[in-house]
């Protein structure tokens, strides 16, 4: 009976989604000419509602909400029904910055000193093994499979080496946003969660350095000059230091606000996050690192501040996650994936294999707990915005040679990892038994309670 009721409600929601799509399609056919004000608002509304309804469907299928958000973006976006066209997706991108800021803030809020201390050994070992195993294996796979693309088959040996080097670095990048998205949904606690947070944050920083270095080396090799400038590395260092300093300042401001004012925390965080995101973009700082540091400061300077931060971000965070991942889904080019899927699948498989091997080796070195040893590779499969961003940089750096081809390959492989990664992480959390609560618990409780009892 209870199950029937909950399914009835789900069917009502599916009917609402169908009505929504029908209404939008009707309005679009009645007035085909769109205006600049209407398009972003309609797109945002469709992605928010579609994302939420798809998430509920995915939940019934035992999959994470994040997969539902991505699917909503794919279905409604320019490569699906085109109810949210490419121009609208581009126009909504600034909202991404706000969403990512809230996601990173909440992740930083999980990083107490205790967590950092207990993860230090695992983090060190995992960093060494991930770099020592994933980098060469991913590079070798590209060396072997890359010539299936004409740009690398017809290019010089230097082009292939440069492509393999860049591909290797792209392969070690992870998706902090996807990891934090799942953590926000399930609020897991335990060694696997700590391990996942520590690794994705650490690799966000490591990859920035590696990428800056590799793009210089690749430029030297591809052009045959054999020289490289290290100015870019210095700039990366400056930017990282700036990010940490700004994050510390922001963390102190948030702590002060929570302590002395405390009113409307979601509104305050939204305004501050947006302003700092613009600030970070202006100075070229790493936004993710900035906000993670801010969250870390809030969580460690004042205990109540950390709790308030997590509460506020979990309330406002869901909207942020839906927007962020639905837009990510809308960006996924399924047409492209259809054309180069064998190559993309091969490279993605090698990456997963290398990640598994590296995680096992790292856990063995650090004598990690059994759950980390067994499932530690699963949170590391996701890739998203950071990797896509690096793909754009590669395309711009080598526009007349292999840049655009490598970017297309990146989009295709990230598409696979973006869909598979969150599912693997959820399975890992299920098996490790670390899911402490689901945001939808109240609903389940209410459903499982007789109406009179609930009243």
């Amino acid at each position, binding site marked *: 009976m209870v199950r029937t009721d909950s399914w009835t*409600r789900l069917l009502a*929601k599916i009917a609402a989604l169908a009505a929504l799509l029908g209404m939008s399609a009707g309005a679009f056919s009645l*007035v085909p000419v769109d205006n600049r004000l209407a398009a*972003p608002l309609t797109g945002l509304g469709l992605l928010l509602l579609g994302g939420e309804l798809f998430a509920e469907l995915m939940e019934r299928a035992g999959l994470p909400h994040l997969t539902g958000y991505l699917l909503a973006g794919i279905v409604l976006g320019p490569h699906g029904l085109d109810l949210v066209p490419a121009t609208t997706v581009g126009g909504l991108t600034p909202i991404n910055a706000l969403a990512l800021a809230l996601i990173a803030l909440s992740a930083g809020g999980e990083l107490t000193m205790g967590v950092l201390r207990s993860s230090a050994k695992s983090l060190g070992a995992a960093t060494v093994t991930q770099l020592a195993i994933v980098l060469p294996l991913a590079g070798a796979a590209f060396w072997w499979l890359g010539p299936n693309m004409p740009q690398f088959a017809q290019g010089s040996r230097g082009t292939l080496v440069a492509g393999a080097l860049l591909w290797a670095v792209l392969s070690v990048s992870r998706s902090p946003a996807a990891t934090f998205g799942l953590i926000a949904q399930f609020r897991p606690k335990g060694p696997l969660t700590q391990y996942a947070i520590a690794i994705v944050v650490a690799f966000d920083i490591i990859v920035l350095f590696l990428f800056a270095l590799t793009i210089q080396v690749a430029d030297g090799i591809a052009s045959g000059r054999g020289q490289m400038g290290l100015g870019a590395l210095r700039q990366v260092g400056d930017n990282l230091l700036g990010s940490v300093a700004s994050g510390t300042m922001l963390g102190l401001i948030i702590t002060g606000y929570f302590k002395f004012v405390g009113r409307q925390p979601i509104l305050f965080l939204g305004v501050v996050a947006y*302003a700092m995101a*613009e600030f970070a973009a202006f100075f070229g700082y790493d936004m993710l690192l900035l906000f993670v540091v801010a969250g870390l400061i809030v969580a460690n300077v004042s205990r109540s501040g950390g709790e308030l931060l997590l509460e506020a971000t979990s309330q406002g965070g869901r909207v942020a996650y839906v927007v962020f991942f639905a837009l990510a889904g809308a960006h996924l080019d399924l047409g492209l994936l259809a054309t180069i899927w064998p190559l993309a699948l091969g490279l993605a498989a090698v990456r997963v294999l290398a990640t598994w091997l590296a995680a096992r080796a790292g856990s063995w070195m650090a004598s990690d707990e059994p759950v980390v040893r067994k499932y530690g590779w699963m949170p590391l499969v996701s890739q998203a915005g950071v990797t896509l961003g690096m793909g754009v940089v590669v395309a711009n750096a080598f526009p007349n040679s292999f840049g655009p081809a490598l970017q297309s390959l990146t989009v295709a492989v990230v598409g696979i990892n973006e869909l598979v990664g969150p599912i693997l992480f959820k399975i890992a959390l299920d098996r490790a038994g670390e899911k402490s609560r689901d945001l939808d618990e109240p609903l389940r409780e209410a459903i499982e309670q007789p109406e009179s009892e609930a009243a």
Partner: protein
Amino acid sequence: MNSIVTLLVLVAAAYAVSFVLSQKSRRSYGLVSGAEFLAIGIVVGPSGLGFLSEALLEAAAPAMAAAAGWLGLRLGLRLLQTARCLGHEALLLLIEPLVSAGCIFGLVYGANALLGLSLSTPVCWALAAVGAPSTRSGVLWVLDRGARGPLTTRLQGLTQIDDTVSVLLLGALFAAMPLSGNGLGAWEKLGATVALGLTLAGMATVLIGRERLRSAIAWLALLGLSALGTGLSLRLGISSVAVAALFGSGLGATCRHASEVEALTEATERPLIQVLLVLLAAQLSFDTRLVFVAVLIAALRMAAKLLGGSVLHLLRRDSGADPWMGAATLSCGGLTTAMVLSLGQALGADAQLLLWAFVACSLLGDLLGSRMLVALLRRKGELAINGAGQSSRTMEG
């Protein structure tokens, strides 16, 4: 520095200044409409110091449209509760805004013909729709100072219900206005307004559900449907504020958690209005003729409000109504801001006049309306000369 950051910093500063000074300024001058935010907008706008560029205002237009829709939704959520609270009295109270709107239209139309102001008929109706309602803040302010009595109650009801007339006028006005690239007729647009508003309400009720309210889901449903409703309204050329108000009213009627949803979203209203006021005022470009016409319109609105109050007094002499009620409800509120925004985006070249008229009406409302309100309540013995700060923000009766 990026313009958006500039705007955020300015709004934060305005919020802080308002936070520090609002109690004092309200006590001393009765500023209830946010005149300080209008002043900030004028100073920092492209016509002032230029901190906010034309490009920024252009980029902020979709967000402003969404904010106007959100305020419409908030109004709709409140309207039904108020109507339930007032009962049949609500219908009688609608006389004042109806008469006021009619009089504003008549007076502005007459002045236009007499003085050759070159105002189109839709602009005259737009001014009537914008001029009819008044803000609740003025009455809440005197309630905070301990005002009690039949006239206070009546004024409280009036300021909460008078928005209905404006929303209806707005819906009709948008339906009547032709829009390029849109082949819909007036009746079709009216039908679309009602259908869209009610469909959104039905969807929100389904999405929010009957179980225990989950704030994250409620926020998602409200934000998503509000954005979608505003976007589709703009596309169809119908009033987004009227659609949102219908959405809110429908939600209030069908959703089990309507009052919780109303409480959940309450905190958004004030900051949104403050940001909108800054952005609205920033759009003003100086033109002596427009300023003159706007001051004239503000004076005509005052006359129309007096007439509306007098008519209500004549009809309900026995229940505490007073001929000066209209003058006591001159202040403009959040709905007016939302309406000016949406009308401004639809009226094109005539938007400047509407903006100036809004600024003039707000300032006049702040300077005169609050004083008239206090004087009236004191004369009736419903407000002590040095009213204590006893807070009461609920409908009496």
